[in-house]
């Protein structure tokens, strides 16, 4: 199409200028040749102009298409960027919410730990009182007997075991139990002596 356009343009110029400049004016057909060549040149120029106008319009349409495609691509990129930004924002919000939940859970866990510690302390103190009460109830007489032995001047372990528990020194199970019980009661005995 473009070749046809260039050929028609060139031929129109040639047909316009060549007969006017180069034809022999003494010929009888000079005027006729001029007329024919000018008419042909006019037709060639108009045809070439029409072709060039069509091509120009097609070029403009292609340019509009290219602009539209570019605008679509830019719009699509912008949309995808916006969507990804929104997704990232949602993910960040989810992460923040999860961290808040974790903080709440940690706070609850701390509260539970503190409660457990308080409960354990209270339980241990209660058990200590219970032990004292048990000692007082069960072995008060033995402590008093030990204190009486101390008052009498009996200070040897075996003698006290003989006086209070009635067991002699040896390797019997009764002696071992009595010895363990005596060693267990010794701190209370000292407290009683210091307190009394």
């Amino acid at each position, binding site marked *: 199409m473009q070749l046809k356009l260039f050929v028609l*343009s060139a031929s*129109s110029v040639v047909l*316009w200028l060549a007969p006017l400049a180069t034809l022999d004016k003494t010929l009888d057909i000079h*005027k006729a040749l001029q007329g024919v060549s000018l008419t042909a040149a006019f037709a060639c120029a*108009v045809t*070439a102009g029409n*072709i*060039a*106008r069509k091509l*120009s319009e097609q070029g403009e349409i292609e340019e509009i298409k290219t602009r539209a495609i570019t605008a679509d691509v830019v719009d699509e990129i912008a949309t995808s960027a916006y969507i990804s930004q929104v997704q990232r924002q949602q993910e960040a919000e989810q992460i923040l919410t999860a961290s808040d939940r974790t903080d709440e859970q940690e706070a609850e866990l701390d509260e539970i730990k503190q409660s457990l510690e308080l409960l354990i302390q209270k339980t241990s103190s209660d058990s200590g009182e219970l032990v004292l009460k048990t000692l007082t109830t069960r072995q008060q007489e033995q402590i008093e007997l030990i204190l009486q032995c101390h008052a009498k001047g009996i200070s040897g372990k075996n003698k006290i075991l003989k006086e209070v528990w009635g067991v002699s020194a040896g390797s019997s199970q009764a002696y071992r139990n009595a010895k363990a019980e005596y060693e267990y009661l010794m701190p209370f005995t000292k407290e009683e002596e210091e307190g009394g």
Partner: protein
Amino acid sequence: MMRAMYLANYFIAGCIAFSLLGWVASLHPYAFRAVLCLLAVIAIGWGLSWLLDFSLSKLLKISVADLQALLIGSFAMLLIGLGVFLCS
């Protein structure tokens, strides 16, 4: 590029048209007078177009600048077309 090509081709076509008018005028004295009358009409129309450029641009639905460019181009076509014919 193509826009320039089609404008140039139409410009050349206009030049050739005025050369053709000159050729017609050279055929016979009556044809010469007729062409003179035609050229006079064209000149009157050209001058009126300059005077009524705003109204004419609205009528033709083109801008005033385009209309003025068209008028100047047509005058250049006349000069070049008749000049080429007369100088040959």
